[in-house]
């Protein structure tokens, strides 16, 4: 079992969701986050005063998957989120120790899907 965490552009969320549904990954947790990479954020100006390097809005996805779903999930995220320009985001894959479905108390692979 793995947990896939992806940081993507907010306006790519719909496209990524569509691609994930196509590979039958239907379980996803989404949260709005702030951050920046090499481009060091954006400039904002308030009453003539420039604020340099404010964080950019991003969306963070958390998806728990069984091992055979890892590659399709990564490919789907890339397909939906890639523009080729700076700021497209990153994908991190972690090992997942345990997973428990609260409703049934099932554990492990069965609890993910």
């Amino acid at each position, binding site marked *: 079992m793995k947990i896939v965490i992806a940081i993507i552009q907010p*306006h790519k969320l719909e496209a990524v969701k569509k691609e994930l549904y196509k590979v039958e990954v239907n379980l996803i947790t989404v949260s709005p986050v702030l951050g920046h990479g090499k481009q060091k954020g954006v400039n904002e100006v308030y009453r003539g005063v420039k604020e340099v390097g*404010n964080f950019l809005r991003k969306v963070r996805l958390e998806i728990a998957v069984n091992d055979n779903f890892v590659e399709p999930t990564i490919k789907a995220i890339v397909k939906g989120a890639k523009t080729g320009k700076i700021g497209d985001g990153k994908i991190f894959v972690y090992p997942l120790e345990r997973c428990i479905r609260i409703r049934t108390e099932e554990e492990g692979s069965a609890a993910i899907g």
Partner: protein
Amino acid sequence: MEMINAGDTAWVLASSALVMLMTPGLAFFYGGMVRRKNVLGILMQCFIILCAVSLQWVLFGYSLSFAPGNPLVGGLQWLGLSGVGQAPNPDYAATIPHLAFMIFQAMFAVITPALIIGAFAERVKFSAFLIFTLLWATFVYDPLCHMVWGVGGWLRSLGALDFAGGTVVHINAGVAGLVATLVIGKRRGYENTPTPLHNLPFVVLGAALLWFGWFGFNAGSALGAGALAAQAFVTTHIAAAAAGLSWALLEWNVNGRPTIFGTVTGVVAGLVAITPAAGFVAVPSAIIIGILVSVFCFYAVSVVKPKLGYDDSLDAFGVHGIGGIWGALATGLFATKSVNAAGADGFFYGNPQQFVNQFIAVGVTVVFTAVVTFVILKVVDALVGLRVKEEDEEIGLDLTQHQEVAYTVLE
């Protein structure tokens, strides 16, 4: 010098302030409907119109609209308000200072281009919007205003009735919006799917301010603090109430749930529809006008728009265009001299000719606005380009056009 009446003057000045508040009200009405990354863009456009068109109006817009001229446009003798002073102008309002009439009309000139922005929300460059607005105010609003309300204007001479601006404001803005959305194109990524409203309470707040301000818009158009103002006040309120309820019931019936968004949309549609009729119809007619406008507008925005696939983002045409056309035609059906001796009888009061007059006024407005708006859009597109870059549209207009954001995620 004509006699200035204190009551009339007080009412028209208060009404001017009420109509002024409608533009910020509209800013919230529209601002709540866009995504959170574009809300400041909408607020900014409304406020800049309030600033820019007010100046345009006193410098030359008022003269082009109301100074004696030819049947199509006013003359230049009132440039910079030359000759527009404290003494009344009996051609327009004999009992209030000419300046009071001028500033009341200024608020109409301001809100009309602001209504259009709902059609091209979330995708237009700020510079293009600003040039478009000034050209549109000068070449569309001012001439049409003269044709309908100016002394010697040809639609006025024709006998078409427009109490408070159904043609000049609502059909005009609605049709301009439709043309703009067709020329500019859809928002990216939202083919035929509704965009998520980012703040529905803002929409409700905006609608409430519009309803409040509309008393100045319609009852103020009596240009005096008398019986006619009371008539227009009551028809305005009742049409809005009927339309809001009608939309809610319609939605309940069609979609299974009545919504607040639908209800406030209905209220605004009712206010639009009663605008040309407010001082010419009886209260029961206002109820009918209100109930039916929601039926027409509901059909326009929920059936026709998705089917034809144009992206009138915030329904400037669907509410103001359709509602305005219905109101103008309804004035030809329901007007009666028993309400306003200076008006006319409509179709249901034995004068079918009035309906024909209204129909001609609607037709002229639609054609004139559509053609001139199209030309202006093409000119602006050639000058600076109408749309923002794809990347900027995705990031949002707040950050890319104004370098500000409305809401923080962290403190």
